[in-house]
Every structure is written in structure tokens, then in C-alpha cells.
């Protein structure tokens, strides 16, 4: 199942980061972990709770809607192997589980972004890798 219409083979930027939509009308989900003791959540998932410093987390599928905490954009080519479109938005999003995720935003025009606005998870085709696969990442999109 493609996340967007495409003939290419789609590959996530990293395994275990998010689940692909289970079917039509379903959303992708970010895969995190949550501490059974203090309740703090982490993304990506990690075995240790960074708050309790104990191996007390369990996997949690994170909510798909959150609130924008801060935002910016990237307007110039960047290092690190990224070959996708410029500009793009970046923000920090607070999810219902209490985790603040640093993420791409589908909106790069900061005049259309504001603190506290509701955003939802989408998958985003990024660019074609050396094997000819289309890399897919995650982003949050303002809820209209």
C-alpha cells in the first residue's frame, strides 16, 4: 500500500520509526515507548526511561494528532544526505502521550503556523535513494 500515488518502491527512512497505514482510510502511526513507572513517553522507542534511568518502558503507538510547540523552516540545501525539496518546515509537536517530537512540517510558510495549533501525522515521500527506492519520512500537517 503506497502512502501516496507512486509507482516506486517506498522505503521508510528508518525501520521501527513509524508504521505504514494498515489500509485505506487508516493513518500511519509513530512508534514510541512509555515508562511503566513515571509515564514519560519517548520517540523513537527506547528501552530505558531517561527520567527514571531504569529499563522500564514498553512499546506505545503514539497518537496521530498533536499541538505545535515551536516551528521554523529550512531554506537552503543541507548536509547529511537529504536530497528532497527545499524549503520545508520543521517543528516540535506535543503528542497526547506527553512526548515532544522534533519533526518535519508539511507547511514551510511560518506565517501559516502558530504555537498551539493542531497538527496531524502524515507520511511524506522525500527523494529517491541510490537503489531507486523512494524514501518516505514523517511530517505533521496543520489540521484545517
Amino acid at each position: 500500500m503506497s502512502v501516496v500515488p507512486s509507482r516506486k518502491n517506498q522505503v521508510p527512512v528508518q525501520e521501527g520509526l513509524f508504521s505504514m497505514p494498515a489500509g485505506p482510510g487508516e493513518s500511519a502511526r509513530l512508534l514510541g515507548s512509555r515508562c511503566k513507572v513515571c509515564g514519560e513517553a519517548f520517540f523513537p522507542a527506547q528501552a530505558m526511561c531517561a527520567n527514571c534511568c531504569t529499563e522500564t518502558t514498553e512499546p506505545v503507538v503514539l497518537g496521530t494528532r498533536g499541538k505545535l510547540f515551536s516551528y521554523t523552516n529550512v531554506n537552503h540545501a543541507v548536509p547529511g544526505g537529504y536530497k528532497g525539496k527545499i524549503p520545508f518546515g520543521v517543528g516540535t509537536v506535543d503528542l497526547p502521550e506527553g512526548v515532544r517530537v522534533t519533526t518535519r512540517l508539511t507547511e514551510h510558510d511560518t506565517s501559516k503556523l502558530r504555537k498551539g495549533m493542531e497538527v496531524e501525522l502524515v507520511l511524506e515521500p522525500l527523494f529517491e535513494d541510490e537503489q531507486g527506492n523512494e524514501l518516505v519520512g514523517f511530517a505533521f500537517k496543520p489540521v484545517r
Partner: protein
Amino acid sequence: MRDVAIIGVGIHPFGRFAGKEFTEIGQVAVLDALRDAGIPWKEVQAAFCGNMTSGTAAGHRVLARVGMTGIPIVNVENACASGGSALRLATQAVATGLYDVALAFGVEKMPRGFMAMTSYDRWQMLQGMAINPIGMALNTRWHMDTYGTTAIQLAKVSVKSHKNGALNPNAMYRKALSLEEIMNSPMVCDPLRLLMLCAPDEGAAAAIVTTGENARKYTSQPVFVAAAQLGSPLYGTTFGTIAVGGSSGSARMSAPEVSVVTAQKAYEQAGLGPQDLGCVELQDTESGSEIIYYEQLGLCGPGEGGRLLDEGATEINGRIPVNTSGGLIAKGEPVGASSLGQVHELVLQLRGQAGQRQVAGARVGLSHTVGAGGNCSVIILKR
């Protein structure tokens, strides 16, 4: 523990030096510090080198060309706090009595453009998120949303930095810039524009320390290391966790940021407070950071950073001069050397040798760097 004092500082100007290897750049700063201290290399008993991009045994490669005396040499990669970490180790080595004379230096020769950081997870790199200005822009936007800090105030930081940098022969950019020039420069990561950001560059700086008791044998103007602290972020700090590649923050907790905690420890160690500071060199990776760190270092209250700047309090002739050297915005940021570049400026200020940049009557100075991994160094110097 013994008192520790700086008896010599040295620098290789920060800038671009085509055809010059980092080894030569580093050597210039080390020799400058030895000359300043008036000691031969053979008196140095241990060396600590801050460096991020030159690869294995960077410090050894610099110092082998100065003299091979068999001393222990430790290379420190701690991102922006590398030089501060090196000075802290040198200070501890002397304070504990392990050595009597130690060298801390930092050296860097960085590629142009955005730093190609390896401090992010691969998924962040592939999503185009592995550049430092993103975190700083998120930080700055939060400050604007929370306290009403303005884009004009961001530009004013850069006006001040370039004005001071024009007076500093060791700065990369030595030309004053107008508010308009800065506001019209290209947007890099909103709200941060190109001329509000520091640029990676090349350079080196060094400091030689000995015991407070010995210091007067070498110099009539020893500068004491009143505090040397290093920290990493607590869990629950929003911006501390952004600095740690690949980790998320907490929307439920709000722990004090690493610069707040590290500065508090430094003030306690020194038995001094922000009110005692005569000059400050802080991590102005970009102009938003300068305003935010005014607050986190206690130079003013939370949300008052923009006003402190508007009042001119942080100008060379202001109440609490900040980045008299021109800061990283005007000097550029040779990462491993930047902390010790701050120390070089503070030592000149405390000795009364800062020329046109001289702050009247400064007795105490503070150096602050913070960067990748959330590494934060705070050093307090006093004469």
C-alpha cells in the same frame, strides 16, 4: 585543592586561511601562549586539546611540531564546549597536584557552509533535519512567542557583534553592519537570517595554567580560574533534548536548561554571582541564543533579554558587556577553539589589554559555550 591561575594565553586569528593546515594554526596559538607566559615548552607537563573535525590525535599532531617531550596529551571532542572541557581538565590536573603547569588549547579548520554534524540520528539526516540552526530557530521562535522578543532585537544582537568584531584583529568579520543589512540578508531558518548566524571557520586559542602560588613567579597579572564547570542536559529540558541528536523532549516536564544549571554551579564554585561579572563571552551561535543566554546565565530575568539588549546594557560601555570580542557571530566558530577564544578575550579584558574593546575596571569574566549533545561549559575568571 590548589588555586589555579592562567599565566599565558595565545591565539591564531579566527577566519579562513587557504593552504594552512590545522597543525600550523594550532601551533601558532600554542607558541603565542608560551611567549605570553614567558616559559619554554619543556616546562609544560600535560596538554589537553579541544577539536571536533581534524580526526584522530589532533592535539598530538599539533604538539609534536612544538616539541616531543613525552607528556600526556588528551584530545577532547565535546562539540562547542571542547575548549572549555580541555581547560577544565587542565585546571583539575593542576588543582589536584598531579601537575604544576598544564596547557589547554583548541584548534579547528572547518569546511564551509552548514556544519555536517554527525551528532544526529540517520533518520534525522535523511529527513533534512541534521543542521544546527533548526534547534536554535525553534528555541528563538519559542522565546518570541513566549516573551514577545522581536526580529529587530535579533538583528540588534548582530549589529553589536559586528561593531565589536570590527575592533578585534582576531575576528573573521571586521566590518560594522547596519540593521537593514542584517534584516535584508537571506532567511536560513525562520526567524534566523544569514547575518544573524555565526559561520564555521578556522582558528586556534590556548591557555597555560599553573598554581595560584606559582603564578606570580611568571606574571604580575595572573588571572585565576574561579570556576570551571561542565554539564549535560537534565531529562525534561525541551531545548536540551533537541541538542541531543535523535532524542525527543517532554511536553509534561520542565527541568532547568543546562546553561542555567551549569552557570549556577559555576557561581557557587566561584562564590560569585552574575552581579559580579564585568564581562561575559557567551555562545552566540546566532542572535537568538545571545538573548536567551542573557537570561539563562542570570544577567537578567526570564523574558528580559530583549530589553537588556535594547537598553544597551550589553554594549562594551554598558552595565554588563557581552561578547566584546564580537562573539562567534563576528569571529566565526572554529568549534574546538571557540571556548578558549572566549578565555583569550576575557584574560585580555581582565589584564586591561583589550585595546579599543577594553571594558573599564572589569575584575571578573565569564565564558559560556553550549552545543551538540547539550554540552555546556561555564568558566569564571577573576583577576
